[in-house]
């Protein structure tokens, strides 16, 4: 079997890439190893309306499981800061529907799909790649001019093509989450909890859906005293008022690459989404970036295909465009991440006193200078600010 473009993985990155490539007229095939696209989610399912609509995507109604007006942030002692406004509005998705919906749009554009079909390895053949796929119909060899690694944090496509996609323990949140019914919380907001005993180097979240909520957290191993699972159990026990009547209906785990992206291309290969570690390093959101990466990658791929040049040098334009769009911002957010990881609980309390919701929104947009000015007035934080936030 021969195609122009073979996409490994039917997550948000893979299906958006497939829709783009198919609608540009290239023969496009997607292989997804799971027997059902969209399960088991490794995700809290939150996206901002602004972020997703900016990419030209109007999410279908049935993919939306919750509508959010803003975020409530909680300090370790329970002080709250509320974030609201147009840019904070968002959705909690039902990912198994969302991902199938994205796949259906790709299929309408002409992409072919295989499920329960796992890519097992690939090798160079003539001017193309030959990818081995284990499927319900047995082993298949698919020849493709361009292979897209949309295979998430476990990306093997990158490794097969010689790109180092190994995540570092220090840049990789270890996450556990229950989806629970019976959670007693304001459903108009997502709820974010900070503290070194809550979620070391990360945060705990409650993302409400129509009749349930995603309740989970991410931590970094270096500061953790126990597993993410144990922190979730503790979090639930310590918030009796919220979880008195709550019971799990699903359990999820996963890794979030809170890193600065590295290489994204090789000869005839492009990595999109989590496979290239394209996640916002502060809040770990990766759906929007995954989709955006596929939009940029497909533009470059179209031109490269038409020119008949799929060399790494040619495809690197994708990396450069990504760098232009996100490079500076990601660098700043990494600095901020390092700073936040050093904070003690008393520092979080202090920040809860001096920061408004709008300030925190600016921070997530990598606007650091006002924050530095504000925090510099607090002697106890001066050292950390100088060390981590100033050049």
């Amino acid at each position, binding site marked *: 079997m021969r195609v122009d473009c073979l996409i490994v993985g039917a997550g948000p990155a893979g299906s958006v890439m497939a829709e783009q490539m198919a609608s540009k007229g290239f023969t496009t095939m997607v292989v997804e190893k799971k027997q059902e696209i969209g399960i088991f989610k490794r995700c809290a399912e939150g996206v901002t309306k602004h972020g997703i609509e900016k990419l030209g995507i109007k999410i279908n109604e049935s993919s939306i499981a919750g509508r959010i007006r803003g975020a409530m942030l909680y300090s370790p002692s329970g002080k709250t800061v509320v974030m609201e406004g147009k840019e904070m509005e968002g959705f909690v998705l039902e990912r198994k529907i969302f991902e199938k919906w994205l796949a259906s749009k790709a299929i309408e554009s002409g992409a072919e799909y295989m499920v329960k079909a796992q890519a097992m390895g690939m090798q160079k053949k003539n001017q193309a790649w030959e990818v081995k796929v284990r499927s319900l119909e047995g082993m298949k060899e698919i020849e493709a001019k361009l292979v897209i690694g949309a295979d998430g944090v476990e990306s093997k496509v990158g490794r097969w093509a010689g790109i180092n996609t190994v995540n570092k323990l220090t840049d*990789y949140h270890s996450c556990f989450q229950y989806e629970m019914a019976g959670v007693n919380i304001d459903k108009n907001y997502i709820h974010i909890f900070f503290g070194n005993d809550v979620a070391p180097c990360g945060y705990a979240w409650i993302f409400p859906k129509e009749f349930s909520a995603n309740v989970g957290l991410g931590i970094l191993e270096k500061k953790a005293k126990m597993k993410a699972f144990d922190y979730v159990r503790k979090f639930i026990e310590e918030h009796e008022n919220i979880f008195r009547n709550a019971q799990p209906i699903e359990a999820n785990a996963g890794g979030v690459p809170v890193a600065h992206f590295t290489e994204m291309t090789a000869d005839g290969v492009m990595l999109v989404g989590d496979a290239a570690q394209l996640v916002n390093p502060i809040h770990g959101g990766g759906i929007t970036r995954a989709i955006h990466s596929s939009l940029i990658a497909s533009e470059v791929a179209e031109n490269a295909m038409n020119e008949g040049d799929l060399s790494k040098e040619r495809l690197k334009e994708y990396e450069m465009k990504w760098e232009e769009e996100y490079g500076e911002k990601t660098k700043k957010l990494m600095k901020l991440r390092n700073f936040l990881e050093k904070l003690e609980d008393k520092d979080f309390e202090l920040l809860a006193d001096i920061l408004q919701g709008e300030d925190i929104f600016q921070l997530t947009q990598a606007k650091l200078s006002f924050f530095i000015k504000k925090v510099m007035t607090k002697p106890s934080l001066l050292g950390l600010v100088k060390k981590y936030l100033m050049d």
Partner: protein
Amino acid sequence: MVKVNEKCMLCAGCVGICPVDAITLYETGIYIDEKCIGCGACIRFCPVGALEE
């Protein structure tokens, strides 16, 4: 050599952290092959404690 126990959530997180590509996730479970050098990264990462030496 690392072993996996029944707690495994099939989350694939450990696959992405193994420096020598010794772990593969199939729909039926994870598989650790002989490339494992026993560095322990996957054990330290696993969100539920499903990996042991």
